[in-house]
């Protein structure tokens, strides 16, 4: 185990870091990819999850630069405003972005997907689950980070049948109608699980006849399942999920969740480290002309859930 690295070169291995935008189980899967790629490409690869938002992420990146890192992959929390920090990092080391892009910065490449498009996939699942339309409530951890905003907007636009417009933003408090659907609102919980659960419960109290719930952060769907089960409304209220929490996948198997949109966090981690390792060796050919490695999101439904889950378990080694 790397216990006390002190600058590049002491162990001979190149050092790269994978910085996330927060602490979440989603990133745990990514860190499995980071580890696997680190072993495969012979680099010291570390996953860092800032617990304190933007200020914490900045501090982490600065300290990584101090440590003498050979490459950093980062998921910027607020790309538009973190350009300065990213450029500073790009000056001192190889910098790539993952999960959330910062196109205006000097990052070498973006590895990930388009959250707006993934959101649209999610919206499509809603329409698929409810061909006749109905009322929908959206749950999400926070609305501040760029990827969350875009994901939600994609979902809304797809449900309402709007054309693609990633720059659009509907305020969370407004009720939106169209295409036979009524989007009742978007509730955030700031990662407070008790509140996340209370949000779902209060929705049932306020709108007893709600038809569909969409959970856009990995932990939202499990909390929703929890509440629906306690309220005896499993299956009655359609559920659309995002990401691949175990409870979500189990729900899809049982049919209580219609489907989920999965990114591929494992590949985010793996690809990021792969690219950084190659760059560190001086191989710049890994960067395509469009400076984008697409790791597309996928829709998982009852028909492909078993295969997906088995694959996931194999990759993260959580099958035991």
């Amino acid at each position, binding site marked *: 185990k790397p216990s006390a690295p002190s600058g590049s070169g002491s162990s001979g291995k190149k050092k790269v870091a994978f910085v996330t935008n927060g602490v979440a189980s989603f990133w745990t899967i990514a860190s499995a990819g980071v580890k696997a790629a680190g072993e495969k490409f012979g680099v010291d690869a570390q996953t860092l999850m800032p617990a304190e938002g933007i200020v914490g992420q900045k501090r982490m990146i600065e300290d990584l630069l101090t440590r003498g890192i050979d490459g950093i992959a980062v998921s910027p929390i607020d790309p538009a405003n973190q350009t300065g920090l990213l450029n500073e990092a790009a000056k001192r080391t190889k910098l790539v972005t993952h999960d959330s892009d910062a196109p205006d910065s000097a990052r070498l490449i973006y590895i990930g997907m388009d959250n707006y498009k993934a959101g649209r996939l999610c919206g499509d699942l809603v329409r698929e689950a409810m061909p006749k339309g109905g009322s929908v409530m959206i749950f999400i951890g926070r609305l501040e980070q760029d990827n969350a905003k875009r994901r939600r907007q994609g979902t809304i636009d797809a449900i309402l049948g709007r054309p693609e417009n990633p720059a659009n933003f509907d305020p969370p408090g407004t009720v939106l109608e169209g295409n036979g659907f009524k989007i009742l609102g978007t509730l955030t919980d700031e990662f407070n699980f008790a509140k996340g659960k*209370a949000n779902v419960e209060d929705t049932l*109290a306020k709108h007893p006849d709600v038809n569909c719930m969409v959970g856009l952060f990995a932990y939202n769907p499990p909390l929703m399942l929890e509440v629906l089960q306690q309220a005896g409304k499993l299956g009655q209220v359609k559920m659309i999920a995002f990401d691949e929490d175990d409870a979500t996948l189990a729900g899809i198997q049982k049919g209580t969740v219609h489907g989920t949109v999965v990114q591929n966090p494992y590949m985010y981690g793996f690809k990021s480290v792969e690219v950084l390792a190659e760059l560190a060796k001086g191989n710049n050919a890994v960067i395509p002309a469009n400076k984008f490695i697409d790791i597309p999101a996928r829709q998982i439904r009852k028909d492909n859930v078993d295969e997906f889950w088995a694959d996931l378990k194999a990759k993260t080694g959580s099958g035991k």
Partner: protein
Amino acid sequence: MKKILGITALLALVCIITAILSEGFLSGYNIENLARRTALLGIISIGVAFVIITGGIDLSVGSVVCLVGCGLPWLLTKQNWSMPAALAAVALVSVGIGIFHGVIITKLRIAPFVVTLCGLMMYRGIARGFTQDQTVGFGGEFTGLRTLATGQISIPFVDGFTLPAPCVFLLVAALLAAIFLNRTIWGRYMLALGRNEEAARYSGINTDRMVIVAYVICSALSGLGGMLYVLDSNTAQPVDFGNFYELYAIAAAVLGGCSLRGGEGTIVGILVGAALIMVLRNMIMLTTNYTNIEFAIIGAVLLIGVIADELVKRYAMRRRAARALLAETKPS
């Protein structure tokens, strides 16, 4: 119980307003939810109230909730401990933390604020350490254990409402706490030392032991709360599970009539305080679409509550004085 009249009236008012504005409020389902949330907050608030009554403060409540809330599923699902062993472990840790705080505060005479502030940082750090920052939960297992938090007890002759299991814990805890505080010698000792520790010591009270007991009660109830919270939500993330709960708990206790100067507090008041906080949040959810100003509203209500309480007290005192004066000047 004049002290909690104001807060009870406020609670009633908020309930009435919400009931008028939202049909869902009085539904059995919503009331069950409110009862369960109040129970969870109430349990930790009672704990913190004991510390406040002895003139101390405990800022580590939220972190103990996190430590137990993450520790229990971690032990059960990741370390494969047996259920009794895991329960015993979290109970021991909770009590141990209380003893640790109490001993440092009484024997080394370090301010409770500082000791428990360190606790706030440490216990969450430890939970993040052993879970490796990963979300832990029960998956679909341990449904029996989870009934402790999710179970519903049907009440005879009442339809459409079943009592959530945490309420039973709350009622038992509140009853025991009230008896302890008001009917036992230890309870009286705590009230006395909260007012004047030196005089209590000179009266032959082992004040150090009483203070330690108060911190143990607080940590134990925080641990119980943490267990129920995680059994209820089924999953916990160490970075933010229980964040700021100490502040809610203290707010509930203060709303309920505990004075931070020590020596004052009623258990019923604390329950009313906890219920008020939960009903306020519920109200904002049910009647508006702006949940992000929830905190602003709770903060404002809390502040207005204590200010009104203070002003009413002053007014009452002035009236009493005036009446006494009148009685004196009137020829008898």
